[in-house]
């Protein structure tokens, strides 16, 4: 077998302490690729019914794919898969830094964890040596301290470490998994699942190399793609400025959240938060994951004012949106500090920004007052209130504890109007892209298998970013802003791409920020696996994976009735690019179900399941 896979799972039962390996049939890999696809299939097979997220029975899976063996640009990724405490159903979230290759090089494709350790532990995996180690001295430490202590204790600074912070330990539903102090598997709260299993961290440092089908061609393609992608992102300045380059354009198109989705325009705020101002003010430099020619993560340094002195990873577009314009905060230094608090305590910066916005919105509307917030004046643009509440949410303390079960849990405690004001799908907060601006996001969010996510289907990039997949019919000019035609097709095809990308596992920016076409991706996939897939077969695998995840959602109680958008998405803007525009939601969903081959209840039809090999 020379196909880029070890065809081997590592299983760890934290209740019994038992460690085992298991062979994976090549047929499963051909169908589900790896990462989020293989993870979904394991959840389908091994969790026959609905599972309480924090129960020991829930599985926590760390999955790689064929792109983690060779030095693939954008291949330093992996997926975390579990039943989410936010959505109470399937979720996957991707992380970077060095962890994916570091684990793959141990000789496994995926790690499947079940049970619950009696006391805090961490996993130390170096090739065949798999140890469950005491983590009682690590419990309570933040995500960065944890990395330092494990490096010191093991004497091995080459270990890549995925860790949770205090938020994960305390089962805050939006807890993230943090890698090597600069990458975060942020969404869906899977850090809280680690915490529920008393698992503080997973340190990996493999030295094996998986064999590929055609080593010469793999090497040649990698060299070519590295150069091409690098050249593309230097030309379009994505490397220089990273995702903050999006801010002003997103705001100009009505895509960026303003005042918890109540505001229409704020060009001054977006200009201060976004690049080039961000790059200048924060002295930002690219901080690449392993093998990455883009380097979208930012390394920043703030030297003044005194209270904001900071050096480390900087906020990205999503965080600038959710902690910046969303809160009417326009100082990138303030957002950088909020970002750092969230990263160290270990919560998703998107959701925690959403929660602060929601709280400020409730405060302004009189749904909560200082009596509820222990005196905290939650006023728009107030940096101190923002930073205080981020820390409270992450620590599950004070008023912030109301968010321990996610936005919906908090809204229900506040009252019916708060429930109406919450902006989420399946309980997962919207990211910093407004479905009223790019309406293909409407079906994408409503049907998102982990809830509202722009990156499990990057359809907005077709309209906003000039990203196309001509090989599968997603072409220049096929959608126009606010017009229904082809929007649901773009949404579905981009979700299929998302299913594939998060199973390979590959950084989405290689295709939608870099220059990688689907044909290039297929060439490399075939050189590694030797499977001779066509582009259509690869996208079909993505469609299969998306539908499999949908079946898990259905198993967990979701259906067509829950394919909805929050009320705020039906309030048109008064000014700006999307002034007076309304999402034709019902029509888009009709188109979408038809394209998907789903019935009126949102369930895949029998013939659809047969076509996808899921019957």
């Amino acid at each position, binding site marked *: 077998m020379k196909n880029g896979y070890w065809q081997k799972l590592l299983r760890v039962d934290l209740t019994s302490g038992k460690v085992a390996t298991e062979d994976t049939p090549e047929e499963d890999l051909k169908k589900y690729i790896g990462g989020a696809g293989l993870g979904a299939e394991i959840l389908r097979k091994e969790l026959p019914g609905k599972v309480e997220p924090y129960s020991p029975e829930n599985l926590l899976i760390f999955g790689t794919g064929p792109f983690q063996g060779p030095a693939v640009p954008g291949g330093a990724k992996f997926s975390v898969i579990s039943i989410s405490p936010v959505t109470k159903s399937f979720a996957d979230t991707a992380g970077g830094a060095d962890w994916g290759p570091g684990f793959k090089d141990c000789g496994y494709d995926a790690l499947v964890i079940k049970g619950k350790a009696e006391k805090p532990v961490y996993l130390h995996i170096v090739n065949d040596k798999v140890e469950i180690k005491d983590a009682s001295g690590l419990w309570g430490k933040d995500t960065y301290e944890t990395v330092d202590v494990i490096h010191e204790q093991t004497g091995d600074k080459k270990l890549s470490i995925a860790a949770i912070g205090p938020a994960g330990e305390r089962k805050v539903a939006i807890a993230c998994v943090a890698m090597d102090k600069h990458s975060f598997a942020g969404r869906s709260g899977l850090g809280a699942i680690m915490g529920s299993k008393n698992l503080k961290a997973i340190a990996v440092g493999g030295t094996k190399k998986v064999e590929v089908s055609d080593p010469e061609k793999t090497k040649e393609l990698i060299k070519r793609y590295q150069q091409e992608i690098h050249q593309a992102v230097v030309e*379009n*300045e*994505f490397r220089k*400025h990273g*995702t903050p*380059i*999006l*801010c*002003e*354009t*997103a705001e*100009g*198109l009505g*895509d960026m959240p303003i005042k918890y989705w109540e505001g229409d325009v704020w*060009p001054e705020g977006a*200009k201060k938060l*976004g*690049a*080039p101002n961000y790059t200048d003010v924060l002295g930002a430099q690219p901080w690449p994951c392993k093998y990455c020619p883009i380097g*979208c993560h930012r390394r920043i340094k703030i030297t003044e004012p005194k209270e904001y002195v900071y050096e480390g990873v900087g906020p*990205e*577009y*999503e965080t600038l949106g959710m902690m910046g314009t969303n809160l009417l905060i326009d100082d990138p230094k303030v957002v950088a500090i909020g970002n750092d608090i969230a990263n160290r305590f270990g919560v998703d910066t998107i959701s925690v920004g959403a929660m602060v916005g929601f709280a400020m919105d409730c405060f302004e509307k009189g749904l909560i007052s200082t009596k509820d917030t222990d005196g905290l004046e939650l006023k728009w643009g107030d940096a101190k209130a923002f930073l205080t509440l981020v820390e409270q949410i992450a620590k599950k303390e004070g008023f912030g504890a109301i968010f321990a079960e996610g936005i919906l849990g908090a809204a229900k405690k506040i009252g019916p109007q708060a429930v109406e004001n919450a902006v989420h799908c399946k309980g997962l907060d919207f*990211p*910093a*892209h407004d479905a009223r601006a790019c309406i293909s996001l409407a079906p994408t969010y409503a049907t998102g298998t982990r809830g509202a996510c*722009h*990156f499990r289907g*990057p359809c*907005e*990039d077709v*309209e*906003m*970013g*000039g*990203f196309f997949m001509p090989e599968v019919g997603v072409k220049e000019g096929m959608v*126009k*802003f606010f017009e229904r035609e082809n929007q649901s097709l773009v949404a579905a095809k981009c979700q299929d791409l998302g299913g594939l990308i998060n199973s390979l596992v590959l950084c*989405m*920016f290689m295709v*939608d*920020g870099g220059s990688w076409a689907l044909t290039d991706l297929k060439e490399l996939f075939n050189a590694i696996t030797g499977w001779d897939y066509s582009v259509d077969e690869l996208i079909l695998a993505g469609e299969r994976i998306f539908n499999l995840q949908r079946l898990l959602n259905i198993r967990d109680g979701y259906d067509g009735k829950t394919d909805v958008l929050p009320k705020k998405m039906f309030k048109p803007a008064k000014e*700006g*690019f999307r*002034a007076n525009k309304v999402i034709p939601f019902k029509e888009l969903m009709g188109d979408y179900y038809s394209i998907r081959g789903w019935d009126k209840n949102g369930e895949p039809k029998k013939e659809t399941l047969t076509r996808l090999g899921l019957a």
Partner: protein
Amino acid sequence: MKVIAKLMSIFAKYQKCDEDGKTTIKDGAIVLDLVRELGIPEKQVRIIAVNGKQSELDTVLSEGDTVFIFPPAAGGG
């Protein structure tokens, strides 16, 4: 004639206007003429909005139009 060119993000450096904040171009110009006048690399132009309406490079401009020219905004992670 004069139009108001709104350039943001990485296009801000191409801003070129008179003291009144407007850019002078030939009568009957299309958006592409304005893009060339300002020196913006054509292949980087992604979205154009004239007076708030999505437009194309060949859209004909009129006196006093407000023209937003956006670079690509791909990738939101």
